[in-house]
Each structure stands twice: as structure tokens, then as C-alpha cells.
């Protein structure tokens, strides 16, 4: 009973915090709400008309939604990069950052699930997918694995921070005995969700562009670059706009993680390019389409040639200690790295998998405005969820929110 009372008070206090704030804060939330409403309108059009309002077609049957889903799984998985040193290796440096990281993971996972639902042809029969009520094709289908992996990860990432914040809210210390096993589990689980998501594509013999043993490891490397890069940017914003203290040391340590991951990612990219272009086979056509275009069709060329230089530039900037330790350079590098990986692992990975088609036909893909509207709406929802979570967490951590008996 006591627990329920405290929890009720926590919810009340947190609603109080998220509905009050500076003008800037309200403006931010209003903006997000507006974008979400636009997204909802676009989705209602899609529900009414069918997926024909998107740019997807019989040839390129996955597009912007699945691209964003793939990328965001990586962002979610990257939360582990903060969990591990804090709880498992007992490096206290990250303690303030870890709650933010887990909040980010929760927001990213909610976005992932929203993107999957947006991509479905029949959202009204989604219950067929629920383990227990539906018929699950486990363990054969990688998508069934992914549903379990993502929802499990979401659960872990909600419960651990909730427990810690709940204790802190009452002015008590969180018991490591309770949350350390969960933290350990989440470390393995994070690697798991990203590998499973990679296997989703890697396991298709029909798509040589994806059917590639490096896909899984490369997913991990790019995730551990893009995810923590985003966390650095978010921490930078939180540092300047709230009294929440995040030390330089913490950011520098996360930057080191980003650097190593970005370097490994680049090595793997070189290995992939070598394989595709040194001795090109019939199976290299997708890569040719992506980088150089095929038969005069080259819709993805501008994107990939933006992503690769940004990726290389960011990695170079991060590699030099002097540049990395200059925060202005660091934030810039993190930003361009994030954008580069979003392009490269989003539609730079998904769309060329379908081009050329099974019998060599080249049908290009470009998202429609409805599709872009839904996508922006889901991103706004993610930002909205994260803002709410972060605001409550920060309130508790700086001691502003406390349970009054």
C-alpha cells in the first residue's frame, strides 16, 4: 500500500513538473505536439487509403519507416554503453549520464515500435503478433525474435531507471543488489536486439546486398557510434538548460567510446567496399546502384556521397585528442556523425537492398510527403517522450522532487 501511495505521489509530482516550465520549454513542447498532430493526420490518410500513399511499391517494398526503425534500434542499443561502465564496471563517472541514456533508449524503442506499426498493412489485426493471443512463428521468423527482443529491452529500460528514481524520490539509496542483475541483463540484451535486427536482413538469401556476414557486427559498430553521439548532444543541451550537473570528464569519456566505435565502423566500411568493388559480381549491383547509379538511375547517390564524407570527417575530428577535447569541435563531430550514420544505415542500407529487383528491374524509391509527415510525427513523439522522462528524472536527481510524507 505504501508503495502505491508513493508511486501515486511520484506520478502527480512528475505531471506537475512536466506541465510547468519556462516559456522556451512550453514552446518546445507545443512545437512537438504540433508536429505529432500533423503526423497523426498523415497517418489517418494512410489508414484510409492504404500504403499506396507512400512511395513504396512492389519492387521497393520497405522504405523510410523501416529505415528509421533500423537506425533507432541502434540508438536504443547504445544506452548499454553507459550502463556497463556505471553499474557493471563501477565507474561512477557515468552515473548522472546513465539515467539520461536509458531515457533515450526508452524513447528510441517507442519510436521503433511506432515505425513498425506505421509500416504494417493491417494494424487492426496486430494482435496476431502478440505472444499468447496470436500465433507466433517462433523461432523461425527473425521478426518474431525482434518483437520479443525489443519489448523485453523496453521493459528492462523502464524498470531499472524507475526503480532507481523511485528510491531516490523517497530519499533512499537504490540497492545495487536489486538493479545490478538487471543492468547485466540489459548489457547482453542490447547487443542481442541489434544483432537480431541485423539478422532480420542478413538472413534473406533473396537480397545479396544484405546477405553478408559483416552486417551484424557493422550494425553494432555504427550503433555504438551514433547512439552515444546523440547522448553527448543531449547531455550538452541538458547541461546548459537545467541545473543538472554533468562533468566534462563524463562527456569526454563517452566521446572516447564514440571515437573507437566510429573508427571500427570505418574499417568495416572499407572492407565492405573492397569486397563489392575489387572483384564485382552480379551480387554487387546493389552497391553499384547505391554509389554510382545503374543505367542512369541514381536517386541515392547524393545521399550516400553526403554520408561517407561526413562519416570520414567526423572520425578524423574525433581521432585527434586535441580536437576531440575541444567541446565545440566535439559537438559538431557528433552531429555530423549522427546524420551520416542515419543516412548510411537508414535508407542507404534498406532501399538499395531492393534495387535491382529479383529479375534485375530497377524501380527507384522516393518517400512521399505523407510518409515524411508520419516519420517526422514519430520523431516528435520520441522527443516528447524523452523530454517528459528526462525532466522527471532530473527533477528527482537534483532533489527538487521528493516524497513528502
Amino acid at each position, binding site marked *: 500500500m505504501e508503495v502505491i501511495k508513493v508511486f501515486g505521489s511520484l506520478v502527480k509530482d512528475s505531471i506537475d513538473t512536466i506541465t510547468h516550465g519556462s516559456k522556451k520549454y512550453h514552446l518546445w513542447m507545443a512545437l512537438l505536439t504540433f508536429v505529432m498532430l500533423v503526423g497523426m493526420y498523415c497517418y489517418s490518410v494512410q489508414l484510409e*487509403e*492504404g*500504403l*499506396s500513399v507512400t512511395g*513504396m*511499391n*512492389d519492387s521497393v*517494398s*520497405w522504405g523510410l519507416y523501416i529505415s528509421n526503425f533500423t537506425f533507432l534500434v541502434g540508438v536504443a542499443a547504445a544506452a548499454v554503453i553507459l550502463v556497463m561502465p556505471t553499474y557493471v564496471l563501477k565507474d561512477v563517472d557515468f552515473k548522472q549520464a546513465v539515467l539520461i541514456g536509458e531515457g533515450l533508449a526508452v524513447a528510441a524503442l517507442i519510436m521503433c515500435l511506432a515505425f*513498425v506499426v506505421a*509500416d*504494417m*498493412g*493491417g494494424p*487492426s*489485426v*496486430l494482435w*496476431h*503478433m502478440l505472444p*499468447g*493471443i*496470436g*500465433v*507466433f*512463428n517462433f523461432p*523461425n*521468423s*527473425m*521478426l*518474431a525474435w525482434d*518483437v520479443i527482443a525489443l519489448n523485453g529491452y523496453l521493459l528492462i529500460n523502464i524498470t531499472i531507471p524507475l526503480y532507481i528514481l523511485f528510491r531516490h524520490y523517497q530519499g533512499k539509496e537504490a540497492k545495487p543488489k536489486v538493479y545490478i542483475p538487471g543492468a547485466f541483463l540489459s548489457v547482453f540484451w542490447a547487443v542481442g536486439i541489434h544483432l537480431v535486427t541485423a539478422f*532480420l536482413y542478413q*538472413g*534473406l*538469401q*533473396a*537480397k545479396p546486398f544484405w546477405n553478408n556476414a559483416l552486417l551484424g557486427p557493422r550494425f553494432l559498430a555504427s550503433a555504438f557510434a551514433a547512439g552515444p553521439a546523440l547522448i553527448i548532444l543531449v547531455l550538452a543541451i541538458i547541461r546548459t538548460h537545467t541545473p543538472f550537473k554533468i562533468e566534462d570528464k563524463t562527456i569526454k569519456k563517452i566521446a572516447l567510446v564514440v571515437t573507437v566505435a566510429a573508427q571500427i565502423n570505418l574499417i568495416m566500411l572499407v572492407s565492405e567496399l573492397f569486397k563489392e568493388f575489387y572483384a564485382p559480381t552480379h551480387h554487387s549491383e546493389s552497391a553499384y546502384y547505391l554509389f554510382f547509379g545503374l543505367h542512369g538511375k541514381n536517386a541515392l547517390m547524393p545521399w550516400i556521397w553526403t554520408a561517407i564524407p561526413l562519416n570520414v570527417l567526423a572520425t578524423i575530428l574525433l581521432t585527434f585528442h586535441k580536437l576531440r577535447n575541444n567541446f565545440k569541435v566535439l559537438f559538431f563531430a557528433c552531429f555530423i556523425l549522427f546524420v551520416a550514420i542515419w543516412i548510411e544505415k537508414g535508407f542507404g542500407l534498406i532501399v538499395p*537492398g*531492393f534495387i*535491382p*529487383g*529479383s*529479375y*534485375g*528491374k530497377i524501380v527507384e524509391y522516393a518517400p512521399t510527403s505523407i510518409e515524411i509527415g508520419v516519420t517526422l510525427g514519430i520523431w516528435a513523439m520520441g522527443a516528447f517522450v524523452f523530454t517528459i522522462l528526462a525532466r522527471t528524472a532530473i527533477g528527482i536527481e537534483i532533489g527538487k522532487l521528493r516524497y513528502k510524507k
Partner: protein
Amino acid sequence: MSDNNKKWFSLNLNFSSKQKSSSDSCGCGKTTGGCNSSTDNDVSHEEFLDAAVNASIGEERRKDGFEQVFDVKMDRRTAFKKLTASLMIGAGAVSTSCSMIAGEETKEKAQIDWEEQFKGNYKLMTDEEKQGTVDRLVRSYQLRTGKNISMSSKNAEEDVLFGYAFNISKCKGYMDCVNACVEENNQDRDSQMQYIRIHEMKEGKGFNFNEADDNYYHEVPAEGHFYMGTQCFHCDNPPCVEVCPVQATWREDDGLVVIDYDWCVGCRYCMAACPYDGRRFNWSKPEVPEEEVNKNQHYLGNRMRKKGVMEKCTFCVQRSRAGQNPACVEACPTGARIFGNLLDPESTIRWVLENKKVFRLKEDLGTEPKFWYFMD
């Protein structure tokens, strides 16, 4: 309706015992009208019983989606959880079906829609349940359009494995097969969905799909070209079936790879997994003019589809299981298409496989298509 044909909302957590007793009653599970009262069901009584016995071998195959869940031993806590969830949905059902304003037909429509929305996966249904959903769909069509259709739920026959052969020398690219397929299978006319693609290839370039044209509009056969058709190859090891997260697509015992349109969630993973471009998606609501609807239907075949689900060639299951050739085979004016039972040593398809140099597409992928090409 027999006892074991319970719908999900007539919840009975302990009816596994009842279910057994009903299997020795009439196989079709109907109490009115006798067995096979639906005129177009051409399964004989024995066959029906046989199939029922077959179905009872696997416990799981006897139950539909909700029974698969509810007909299990569970502790009170889980039972409670599931009960609350279903009661909430049930309240909605009651309010629709008990509304005073709605007329009889509206009520019946609502009732059918409701049962259809929450029915189980066809693959796991008993024969009675299959008949039940087919009856509902026929009635629903009648209520909506005033027209009668016949729909079969005939299962695979024993000792049948369907196979297909395509004679590249004979095909002249007339596309009669494509037209016949569209008409037979009630494909969406708006998006001009076609299961079959005819690739026009240049002589002397070999099988070069990259330079082939599968969308030609000129007189055929064109000088210096030959033609090759592709469609779903009904693989024996189909990658599309493996990847489906909800088992909405599967390989039947006679080798047909089919889809339960009502169970499909529309994720299009199967479309990405198929190396042969054999699957189609309904990007919009499929439209077929009422007078063009083929009313001889099969649940797994050419019945009307809805928006947002996958569909594909079924070797015209409504025809092939009734002993006929698929529409494409029948329509082909040159005799390039050969269809038959691979297990029958006397069949034409077996003669082709034994006497011609046959090959299949992308054999290195290990999909084992049951669709062979050959030349005279």
C-alpha cells in the same frame, strides 16, 4: 454448430473434454442441413472424416486462434488476466449485436464482422472451423451485394504434389495466361496486379533478365526475341514461409504455398524474402467490378482480398484441387504450360521431367522450386 465450435467469447476454460466427444459425431460439425449441405463442397463424406482424423493428430491443429490460447491449463492468475481482457472486448460485441436500432441484417453483418475479426489462423483450424468461416464469408458477401458466391475450403488430397513446367520454345508472349489469371483470381484491376510476368528476352543473349522487358506493348512474337514466364514457384523450401512472423503463409501438403489473407498483418517481410518476385501486396483496397467477379472461390485462393494484405499465385487452388488445370495453363494457346501431379508417374509433368533437360531459376539459393523450364 457443434460443441467444440465455440467462438472465443463463449469462453469456457475447461472444454477440452467436450472437444474430444464431438469428434465421433458428424465430421462436418453441423447440426442443421446434414453433411456437405453447401452444394459446392465437393468433398465426399469419407474424405471429410479422413481429413478430420488427420487433423486430430496434432492437438494444435484442432483449435482456432482463441482456443489455442484458452484451451490450456492455466493458473487462476493468468486465467483472470485473460478473462478481464476478453470481457472488455466482449462488452463491445454485446453492445453492437444488441443495439435496438439496428435491423436484423445489420446485426447479422456486425456479428459476422465481429467473428471474422477475431477468428483464428486458418492453418490451425479444424475442418468444421474452416467450414464455419467459409459460411460466414459467403453470407457476408450475400448481405453486402445480394449476390451468391460459392467458396470451398477443400484440403489438400493425399498423394498429390503439384508441379509446373514451362516450355521456353513454345511461349510466344501472347499474355493470354496473364489475362486469364487476373480474371480467374479476382486481382485488383486498379493497380493492374498480375501474378505472372512474361519477360521478353533478346535472342543470342542467353537468359539475361537484366535486359529483358516484362512490360511490353507491341505485336508478338517480336523478331529476334524469346519469352519466359515467371510467377510464384511454390518452392519446397520457401523462404517466404520461414520469415512470416505470424504463420499467415505456409506450404500445404500438396505443395501449394498459400496465404490466409485474414491472418496476414501486412509486414511484407515475405515479399523481401522471396527471390522470385512471387508475392504481391494490396497497397490500396482491391477493386473488381461486380460483374467481373469470379464467384467460384476457395478460401486460400481467389476469394476477395482486402487492403494491406499479401497475395500470390496459388496454382489456382480453387481449380487444381477440383481436378482442373490452373487458368494460365488452360488459357495458353501454344501449350507452353504444363501442370500436374508430380507423384503420379503417368502425368505429363513427370514425362517432361524425365525426358527433357529441365532447369530451375536461382537453384543455388536452396529454395527447391516446383517450377521447371525446358526447351523442345
